[in-house]
């Protein structure tokens, strides 16, 4: 028998249902594996009891015949989701000691669906980063290593780096992620797993620590497309507590899965062919095109003329929103308080925020504060929101010619930790392919396509029309079936 920890969401669900194993066995196996993987630094908090309790409930539910969609499935929870009674930090020192008295809608939905929690996953601080190097609790290490024998620790991607690392190392079958400018898709690509950012508004933002409100979307990360579909069905849904939540029923995405793409037109955005892109990425893209053709799709070239402005627009809008969203961390009501001797209120704020926020968070707060400050609003923020309109229009224009878009997920494979952290701009450029769809609120997914010359995973990205998660998942499935990606990191930890 394969190890239980090698099973994905669907396999665990089905196995528990048909009695192949108990949910408790599954939870215990994952709990043990989590406990043995400290070297990856993927978990900030381990919650084995939570997983066991849900497992026991699943086993009881099986006995009484009322299993839920995720009964018996233990998952990892990105530590950006507030969890009732379990410390939640967004990987920042400023939330030192914070234990929410409430449960985020997304996590509550998952528990409602029967899932259990293995623990809270590390991330880039406040989800700001593309390598998981900005966490106040240390870097997450990717389980992958280059073939060169150098054993340089690699970035698991970010910001959902704890999630990607844990899934690819088989510490959990699935995890939650959040994606503001690519934080689900890029780490999925770096670690050879799948992840989908749904349409903005599909998953409630209530109880999820905000980075940039108009961009933040929760989504699942898992080892295959079906598991992503199952997870997303549980996570998504209308929430009256979130004004931007979409008042729509959740489609049966798993039931709707089909890799037959006959009649579908796939657009290839020509502006995504950027200078200096590694040949291996380009080759993978060509391979992806061939796979989708093979699945019955027609390929058309499309143009998204404002692509080049997406990143700079993003790096105005996201920091601006963040500078305001993070103003609440002031040492008054929760989290860290740094009160130097004789300090007044405003000094306390400044000291607390200086001590609690990491360098990248401060940098973004500074940029955001600057672009919103007196006299600059029109030139920066308003201009960026106008450009955003143009970017969304580009997509609308493309949808008159195709149903889905195919592009690489990231311009490179995983880089080594420390390789880009000294140059913020180089790091930002890593999100060049993921940011445009985030700005337009569109569903987008990364699926593994193959390995590069160093044996590291590369991802392909599918972008869909608003609300067409099904189309995205189906194209992802078509690639998955053809890519036959089975590579996994060798266990060294």
């Amino acid at each position: 028998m394969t190890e239980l920890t090698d099973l994905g969401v669907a396999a665990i669900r089905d196995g528990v249902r048909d009695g192949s194993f108990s949910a408790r066995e599954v939870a215990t196996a994952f709990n043990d594996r989590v406990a043995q993987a400290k070297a990856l630094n993927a978990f900030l908090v381990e919650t084995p009891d939570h997983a066991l309790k849900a497992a026991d409930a699943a086993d009881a539910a099986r006995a009484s015949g009322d299993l839920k969609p995720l009964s018996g499935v233990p998952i990892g929870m990105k530590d950006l989701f507030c969890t009732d009674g379990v410390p939640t930090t967004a990987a920042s020192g400023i939330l030192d000691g914070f234990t929410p008295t409430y449960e985020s809608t997304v996590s509550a939905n998952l528990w409602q669906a029967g899932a259990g929690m293995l623990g809270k996953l590390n991330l880039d601080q406040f989800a700001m980063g593309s390598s998981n190097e900005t966490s106040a609790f240390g870097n997450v290490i990717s389980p992958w290593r280059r073939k060169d024998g150098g054993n340089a620790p690699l970035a698991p991607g970010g910001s959902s780096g704890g999630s990607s690392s844990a899934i690819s190392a088989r510490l959990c079958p699935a995890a939650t992620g959040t994606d503001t400018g690519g934080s689900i898709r890029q780490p999925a690509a770096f670690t050879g797993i799948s992840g989908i950012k749904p349409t903005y508004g599909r998953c409630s933002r209530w109880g999820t620590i905000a980075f940039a409100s108009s961009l933040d979307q929760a989504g699942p990360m898992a080892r295959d497309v079906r598991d992503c579909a199952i997870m997303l069905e549980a996570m998504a849904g209308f929430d009256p507590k979130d004004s931007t939540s979409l008042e729509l029923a959740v489609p049966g995405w798993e039931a709707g899965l089909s890799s037959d793409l006959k009649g579908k037109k796939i657009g290839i955005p020509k502006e995504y062919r950027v200078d200096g892109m590694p040949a291996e990425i380009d080759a993978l893209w060509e391979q992806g095109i061939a796979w989708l053709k093979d699945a019955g799709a027609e390929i058309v070239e499309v143009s998204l003329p404002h692509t080049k402005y997406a990143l700079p627009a993003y790096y105005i809008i996201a920091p601006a929103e963040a500078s305001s969203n993070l103003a609440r961390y002031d040492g008054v009501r929760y989290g860290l308080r740094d009160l130097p001797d004789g300090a007044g209120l405003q000094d306390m704020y400044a000291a607390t925020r200086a001590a609690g926020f990491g360098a990248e968070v401060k940098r973004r707060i500074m940029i955001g504060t600057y672009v919103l400050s007196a006299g600059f609003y029109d030139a920066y923020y308003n201009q960026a929101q106008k450009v955003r309109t143009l970017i969304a229009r580009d997509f609308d224009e493309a949808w008159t010619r195709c149903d889905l878009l195919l592009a690489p997920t990231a311009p490179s494979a995983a880089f080594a930790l420390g390789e880009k952290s000294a140059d913020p701009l180089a790091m930002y450029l890593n999100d060049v392919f993921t940011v445009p769809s985030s700005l337009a609120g569109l569903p987008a997914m990364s699926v593994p396509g193959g390995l590069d010359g160093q044996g590291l995973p590369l991802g392909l990205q599918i972008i869909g029309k608003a609300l067409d998660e099904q189309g995205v998942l189906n194209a992802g499935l078509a690639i998955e079936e053809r890519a036959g990606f089975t590579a996994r990191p060798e266990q060294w930890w």
Partner: protein
Amino acid sequence: METTSSYRIQGATGEWEVVIGLEVHAQVTSNAKLFSGAATAFGAEPNSQVSLIDAAMPGMLPVPNKECIRQAVRTGMAIDAQINKWSRFDRKNYFYADLPQGYQISQLYHPLVGEGAIEVTLDEKDPDSAVKRIGIERIHVEQDAGKLMHDQHPTRSYVDLNRSGVALMEIVSRPDMRSPAEAGAYVKKLRSILRYVGSCDGNMEEGSMRADVNVSVRKPGEEFGTRTETKNVNSVRFVMAVIEHEANRQVDVLESGGKIVQETRLYDPDRNETRSMRSKEDAHDYRYFPDPDLLPLELDDAFLEECRASLPELPDAKRKRYEGDLGLTSYAAAVLTAEAETARWFEALLAECGDQAMAKAASNWLISDLFGALNRLGLDIEHSPVSPKQGAELLKLVADGTLSGTLAKQVFEIMLETRQDPGVIVEEKGLKQTSDTGAIEEVIAKVLADNGDKVEQYKGGKEALFGFFVGQTMKAMGGKANPKVVNDLLKKALG
């Protein structure tokens, strides 16, 4: 729309004119807060009416309260303002301990209510007093802050978030006022309209209404000067005092060669002075931007129609109707309509009378007798010991001759004390006036007989003595004789 205002400050260098604009914050009457489901009631235990949203816990999100939007729209309609069917909420960013989010959700770029105006009269008792139109630039909806308490601990301030997130309307006037009196009249009129509409209880002591007072001075005819803003002034009297004080201070500064700094000031009522607010030193860069947690607020016609249909008759219209249809004096009409409660009471009284022709009598009685009594008792009209029904009964007893004016006053005093119906009092105390001509004739005969000398004088031409005979007759009848009958019979008896 400058009208002449004679108010001037006499400086060493000549006359100065004062320019005043007010930003009135009015708490919207609602059960729950603007963006959370926590209660808004005044005076609760600290931090008991606070949701996790109001405390700005991580991941909390705002969802707007429909009633708050509705009340702001109705208020806008009541001041004849442009209602914007498309508006949105912006964040005003600043750090303060009473502001948990680190920003206030407000409306800068696209407010819910645009340009409007109200008319104020400087002296409501004077029918010829000039009416002045004060422009209102906008009304926007925003969150209130929490409360900081400084006097409970030697080295700490305490934060109570009960008010945090309560809905406010910020009503921003044009700089159209030119004297403390005009500003006072404006606040009173605004308060009256809000209370008619029911969108704010206007309770200034509890902070339901407070004004930021913008004052500048200039030589008449010159450009506007630099203004200062004095925050959170919470009574009409204080608004007027702030203007007076601040205008004089500015004149002093300017005349001694200084410059006015655009700044935020605080009013100290105990010392009657304003001073610069240290805590607002860098408050000029609020980094406003649209709140990304909220979509644009779009109102449809059905919503607006309901808002309009639910508006009551407003004070100006009511006053005109009282003068025109009911034939009341402009003074009476102004007094009766100044407060929604008074008008409501008056209309209930008139309805109980069941006869529009009694409007004048009802108005006189309410303004002199009832108001006089309430004043004496320190009660407002909502807590009147006499109900409109009882008042109407009393007026009817006078109209049908059962009670004389004097008797009515006696009965009214007993009503105030015992809360009994006037009919019952008249029965029990036998206060009914008599029109029994036989009895009256008997008394008249005795009065004339006892005052033979005066009868002579009267007949000799001293007609003023007629009143004396009336008085003596009434006195002898214990005030219960019908004065008209007494008059008639006396005239007959005296030939």
